């Protein structure tokens, strides 16, 4: 909201600099975002919190400034000519819950013209457009007193005034020239034939004041915040009027606003006041008494305050304060304060004015009945390990397109009711698409060689409604990256986590060529693979991408505390075997045979050489294995090793597709 200092001066002498005033207001809870000089005036851009309807008016702002400066407001209340009743119109309120009070005033013989400069300046400095003298007067009074007003061309109203719900399929053209279909959620102002305003939001084109207007019907009312909110949301507009009604408008100053407007219309628009008609009643409820205890206030804020300090601060805010005992006070907030209902609200008012910054900070001794989230700890552990394996963490957004996702993952995705963009309408079922986007971003900027990981949740529908699971994804691309490097990263991760008994099973995965599933017992905990060319093309990737996804819940379950196992002090004997392996046989099979035959004396197997050359038989791979033999309890004799090694050779030689060289 904006307000002007000259406008405030209608209520109060202000003799502090604009800069000082801005800082005073900011520290009292009216945050000044910006202020600047406009001619001989100062304009302040402020943020008013939703609990303070009373600050949405110049009188409210002035009251706060007066309290900051320890001054009193000088208010000239306009005279209300309540006695002259208008007989020609009746006000019919269908439901008092929608509209508790409605006042209509008739002013005849007006001249609609442009506003005098003081008036147009007042409204413009509060960032309201100047339209004509009549509209500007209604806005001026709204700004000044906080009650929205609306002026109808009285000659275009046919019959009485009805405040009622719209009928289904009734339609309405606003002064913004837009047509809107209405329904029974909309509260409207209507005459005998038509809708003439969307209550509290916007007037209708059909009764708009223009330069031919002679007679004015002026509306002031209290509409229910909820109905105004619903109407303006459905209508898709936010007006100065709806903004105030939504935050709840008080009836306290309603008649002053009307009186003020009538006087001005008579003076500026040379009209003549004919009388008022009203419906409902001005329900000026007093706020209830709240009993507060000084010792509780001290406990709440952590500082000792004197009885007199508390009383003076609250009284200065127009609270009615009575001392019951040394410790207890009863306070009653002024009627325009809708936000003070409980003791804590009084504590807030006191501390706000006393100054949060005057309260001494202290460190509490914190006690807990609960412990750290183990999953948080585990994820942080992963975040420390993966960079050691050369991976960089990325963060990508959790929202994606349903179309994209169904290309990548079979899980059923959860769609968003109100997406920002139609192409981003679902929660991700896989971290793959974010990985692809990030890798692509880098490739397109000549940043090759990427090794990424992400830790985030995936979401999908299941039989219980929905499921949200933490996942670790890894993606690599670049001239140094290939399948086996990524496999090595996973092995490294499992080593760090002390997870044993994991198998890599060569079983395809949709969208991947050369995929291995990572399996523990019967349970698949993830996979790794090379992204299929078709998918790569679909996402316009220019390089090969290797990707892995692992279920963090399982990793956490399998992750074991490290425990020392004794290292054998006896020497290792190693023996080499050169093998030509046909494509029909897997390395895994070779390993299995060695494991079976060498049993407890086997301490390791590694590939020490791979042959590539003209003499390698077709459809074969040729390599040398080094097998390590060792006993835990004695020095192994070379004859012991020889016996074992011979049986390993024999078994290998006996298998189809394995040739010893």
């Amino acid at each position, binding site marked *: 909201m904006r307000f002007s200092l000259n406008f405030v001066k209608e209520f109060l002498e202000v003799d502090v600099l604009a800069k000082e005033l801005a800082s005073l207001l900011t*520290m*009292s809870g009216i*945050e000044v975002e910006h202020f600047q000089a406009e001619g001989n005036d100062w304009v302040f851009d402020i943020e008013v*919190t*939703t*609990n303070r309807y009373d600050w949405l008016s110049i009188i409210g702002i002035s009251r706060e400034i007066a309290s900051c400066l320890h001054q009193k407001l000088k208010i000239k209340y306009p005279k209300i000519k309540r006695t002259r009743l208008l007989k020609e119109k009746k006000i019919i309120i269908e439901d008092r819950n929608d509209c508790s009070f409605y006042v209509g005033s008739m002013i005849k013989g007006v001249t609609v013209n442009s506003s005098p400069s003081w008036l147009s300046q007042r409204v413009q400095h509060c960032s309201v457009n100047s339209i004509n003298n009549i509209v500007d007067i209604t806005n001026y009074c709204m700004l000044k007193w906080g009650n929205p007003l609306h002026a109808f061309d009285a000659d275009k109203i046919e019959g009485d005034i009805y405040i009622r719900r719209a009928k289904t399929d009734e339609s309405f053209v606003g002064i913004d020239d837009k047509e809107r279909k209405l329904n029974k959620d909309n509260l409207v102002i209507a005459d005998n034939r038509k809708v003439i305003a969307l209550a509290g939001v916007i007037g209708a084109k059909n009764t708009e004041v223009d330069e031919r207007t002679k007679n004015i019907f002026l509306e002031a009312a209290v509409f229910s915040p*909820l109905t105004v*909110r*619903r109407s303006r949301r459905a209508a898709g507009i936010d007006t100065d009027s709806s903004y105030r009604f939504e935050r709840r408008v008080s009836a306290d100053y309603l008649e002053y606003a009307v009186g003020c407007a009538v006087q001005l219309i008579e003076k500026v628009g040379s009209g003549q006041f004919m009388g008022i008609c009203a419906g409902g009643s001005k329900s000026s409820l007093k706020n209830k008494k709240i009993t507060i205890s000084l010792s509780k206030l001290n*406990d*709440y*804020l*952590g500082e000792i305050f004197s009885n007199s300090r508390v009383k003076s601060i609250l009284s200065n805010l127009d609270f009615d304060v009575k001392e019951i005992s040394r410790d207890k006070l009863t306070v009653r907030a002024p009627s325009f304060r809708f936000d003070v209902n*409980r003791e*804590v609200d009084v*504590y*807030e008012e006191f501390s*706000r004015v006393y100054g*949060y*910054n005057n309260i*001494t*900070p202290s*460190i*509490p001794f*914190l*006690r*807990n*009945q*609960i412990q*750290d*989230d183990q999953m948080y700890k585990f994820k942080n552990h992963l*975040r420390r390990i993966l*960079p050691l*394996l*050369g*991976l*960089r*963490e*990325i*963060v990508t*957004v*959790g*929202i994606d397109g349903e179309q994209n996702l169904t290309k990548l993952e079979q899980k059923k995705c*959860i769609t*968003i*009711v*109100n*997406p920002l963009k139609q192409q981003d309408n679902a*929660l991700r079922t896989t971290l793959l698409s974010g990985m692809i986007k*990030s890798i692509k*971003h*880098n490739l397109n900027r000549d*940043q090759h060689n990427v*090794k990424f*990981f992400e830790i985030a*949740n995936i979401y999908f*529908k299941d039989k219980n*409604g*929905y499921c*949200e699971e933490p996942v670790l994804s890894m993606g690599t691309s670049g001239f140094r990256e290939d399948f086996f490097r990524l496999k090595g990263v996973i092995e490294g991760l499992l080593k760090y986590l002390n997870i044993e008994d994991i198998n890599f099973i060569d079983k395809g995965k949709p969208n991947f060529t050369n995929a291995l599933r990572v399996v523990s017992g019967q349970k698949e905990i993830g996979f790794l693979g090379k992204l299929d060319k078709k998918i790569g093309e679909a996402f316009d990737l220019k390089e090969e991408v290797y990707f892995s996804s692992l279920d963090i819940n399982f990793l956490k379950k399998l992750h074991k505390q490290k425990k020392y196992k004794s290292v054998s002090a006896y020497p290792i004997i190693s023996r080499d075997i050169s093998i030509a392996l046909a494509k029909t046989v897997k390395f895994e099979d070779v390993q299995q045979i060695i494991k079976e035959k060498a049993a407890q004396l086997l301490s390791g197997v590694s590939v020490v050489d791979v042959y590539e050359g003209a003499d390698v038989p077709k459809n074969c791979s040729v390599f040398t294995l080094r097998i390590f033999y060792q006993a835990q309890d004695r020095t192994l004799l070379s004859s012991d090793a020889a016996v074992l090694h011979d049986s390993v050779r024999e078994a290998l030689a006996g298998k189809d597709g394995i040739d010893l060289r």
Partner: protein
Amino acid sequence: MSEMDKEYKILEENFDKECQVVFSSRQLEDLRVKYLGRKSALAQLFSKIPELTLQEKGVWGRQLNILKQKITTVLEEKSRAVKDEEETMDLTFPSYGKEMGSTHVLSAVSESICSILQRLGFVVVEGGEIEDEWHNFAALNIPLEHPSRDVFDTFYLNVKEKNRGKYLLRSHTSPSQIRVMRESKPPMAVISPGRVYRPDEVDATHSFMFHQIEGFAIDKDINFSHLKGVLLHLVQEFFSSDVKLRLRPHFFPFTEPSAEVDISCIICQTPNSELRTKNSGSKCSVCKDKGWLEILGCGMIHPNVLEACEIDSKQYKGFAFGMGVERIAMLKYGINDIRLFYENDVRFLDQFT
């Protein structure tokens, strides 16, 4: 001069000559084979000894051994020299490259804030990102249709609703804290880091997904002064020990009193900050010469919230605070566009290794 003498002389001269033109290990090895190998001239001379007289045997035996010793020594010296020569290389040549990983700056900032608070006694509890209306709004004293909800605009989900209202993506991490308050008993002091979502159009300072850290403490004697102490400690540990704190009155439905918290500008107002830049007379680009930077919101937990969590608000009090991780990371590292966090450009990530 005997035949033996002649051959000896030639051998010695040839060796001395050939030694001069040896520059590589391979040439040296050839030389070694030529002069010390089984078929070398020296071996041939040795083979002639049995044919000599007893007196000559003694003389030549000694002499040939001296020569063999000399050749061996020279070759060894030469070998050392050649190896040294060969070892010498251009050490300014680039390495094979560094294989370094990194955590994302958002994780690093979040972790660092959490660990400062953990040392004060807070525990970390994460929660789910899919929530329901009750936990995201109602329990936090945010009425269903009220302007105070507008800042918490929310993505709703097509998931069949149960008894706690419609499902949505949490618009703050507070619902996770509500779950802790309901499931555990006070005293407690908890922080919840995590992702949150709000349907904001993306620009340099807005993203529909961002990260928050929220914290609360509930006990019988918790007060507003404690809130200030914890926050002061946090910002001074995280930014710089001379950072000042300022609390401005504000409104949040879930706290009373509520405050927005500023720190003195780390660019132009804190003398010891590493980020401090010399004032060149122009406006401070970060605080726009206001001198203060807004970093978080806080307050004493509203009794309505405690009551919604079945905590006796007459016995227990609490404070709560919440901050955006992106905002804090942007201030700390001078990052000017929120979108950089989610693009994952290697040149960005690399700077936080």
